[in-house]
């Protein structure tokens, strides 16, 4: 049995560059995040957890596919009326499918590994906890964004499809269809990013994130009933400001001025970044005491 030892340690051995801006070896961090993505993305896209994600994302797609093929009267409004139906359903899709998927996926990033007693493998590698958090967040964001971007696009197209391929193509490529579709996909990705950051942090603070997750869910669901000031303390309010097709919230809704896109997009991104910084800071304090779980 060999006992050869390579005593050289450090970034140089790992083929890394010397430190860059802010005294940080950015090339090493890129490689480390790449390593985490390799391990995590497959975990998020395959297995039991992913199955729930797929059900939430694609069950509506299946249902709408069925609606497309079943010969029932879909009105004479053409693809624009289909898009209007989609626009009315989309807020529920975000509040239910996107929200619950984010809750499940992002809160599991740390908590599930603590339960499986496998988090220590990461914590025994020469990686900053903030980088680990960022890597895990990115992996879940990529998996979820891919899934829900596809699901959203399919839903939009399917709702516009019953009036024939020609009408659909016309609406998508010669009308406002493609712009609307991309806007909805963008909103979904922003939703994944915002909710994801919140649940990543919640997963670090709460042993059982079910309760805060459900409380926040109710908050987001009843957002349309809240007074204007309280409305602004929610992800769904900023997302709604970006909807390309306006939605009527019902007779009991309290109307608040929508936040303009130039403010809501950077606002959401800044909010997400701040929550991620908090999650990274929290990750530095993680100790491995599996027995306590």
């Amino acid at each position, binding site marked *: 049995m060999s006992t050869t030892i390579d005593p050289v340690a450090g970034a140089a051995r790992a083929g890394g560059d010397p430190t860059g801006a802010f005294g940080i070896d950015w090339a090493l961090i890129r490689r480390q995040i790449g390593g985490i993505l390799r391990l995590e993305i497959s975990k998020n896209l395959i297995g039991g957890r992913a199955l729930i994600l797929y059900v939430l994302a694609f069950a509506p797609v299946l249902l709408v596919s069925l609606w497309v093929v079943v010969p029932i009267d879909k009105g004479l409004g053409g693809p624009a009326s289909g898009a209007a139906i989609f626009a009315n*359903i989309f807020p529920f899709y975000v509040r239910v499918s996107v929200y619950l998927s984010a809750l499940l996926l992002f809160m599991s990033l740390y908590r599930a590994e603590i339960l499986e007693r496998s988090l220590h493998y990461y914590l025994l590698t020469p990686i900053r906890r903030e980088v680990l958090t960022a890597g895990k967040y990115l992996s879940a964001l990529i998996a979820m964004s891919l899934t829900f971007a596809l699901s959203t696009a399919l839903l939009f197209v399917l709702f516009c499809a019953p009036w024939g391929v020609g009408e659909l193509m016309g609406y998508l490529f010669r009308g406002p269809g493609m712009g609307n579709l991309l806007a909805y996909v963008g909103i979904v990705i922003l939703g994944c990013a915002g909710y994801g950051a919140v649940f990543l942090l919640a997963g670090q603070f709460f042993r059982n994130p079910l309760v805060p997750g459900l409380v926040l869910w109710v908050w987001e669901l009843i957002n349309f009933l809240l007074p204007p000031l309280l409305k602004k303390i929610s992800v769904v309010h900023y997302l709604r400001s970006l909807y390309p097709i306006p939605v009527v919230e019902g007779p009991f809704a309290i109307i608040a001025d929508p936040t303009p896109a130039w403010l809501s997009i950077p606002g959401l991104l800044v909010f997400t970044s701040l929550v991620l910084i908090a999650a990274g800071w929290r990750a530095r304090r993680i100790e491995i005491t599996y027995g306590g779980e």
Partner: protein
Amino acid sequence: MAVYEHSYSRYPGPFTPAWSRFLVLPRFAFKDVFKSRLLVFFYALSVLVPVFYGLAIYALNNLEVLDSLGNAGDELGRMLKVDETFFSVFLLVQSGFAFWLTVFIGPGLISRDLANNGLPLYLSRPISRAEYVLGKLAVLLLLLSGITWVAGLLLFLLQSSMAGWEWLAANLHVAAAIVVTSTLWILVLSLLALALSAWLRWKVVAGLLFVMIFFVGDLFALLVNMLFRTEWGHVFNFDQLIQIVAASMLGIRPPDGPPVWGCVLALLLFLGFCLLLLHRKIRAYQVVS
């Protein structure tokens, strides 16, 4: 020559009856459940509602009490009647309590055994897979029965004792509705919770999925109804199905939804599916793929 020292001898004492052996599981589970102060508080709260209903029955059957309340008593007597609607509201409230109790108790029942590789330990004893599931099921059956049909029947008997045997004879269908719909609801909640608990090692995810199936099911039902202009979408909305069954038994106006036979069929199919999930997962060994 080999010398064998036979120091081991079989236990010569009496055994508990085989039929009741599964009750060992709920006995230990109850200890765990009532360790949580939150659950004790919640369970106490869910018992308080029947007490309140009992007081209402007493008051409504007692003219002196109503008189002592003055105008409010007259108003109460006019507004409230101990009839089918009274019991249907009671069942609705208690169903809510049963749901949330299941959310917090059910998902951990099997998942903890799976996470700690405890299933082979149970199943290497003289206890079958069915008895194991029955034992776990008994935890929820007993707890939820206490706040639903047992409490409901007690209220029914209280009302019968105060209103007379004619009332009892005329309202036997109410007692039947209390027992049947409560049992259906308890079975739906318990079997679903156990099935999720068996398939997901993490009880938090099992709990989340449990809640999701009910809430998302409601919304999914609305979507189906809206797209296909039908009422059959409610087959994904289990509480609505139960309410339709309850309303038909109580003889009051049912909420929108499929016909009663459709509701019962959907519920039975769902219960069968949960049993199938349990059958596939509860095994004394682990399959590594």
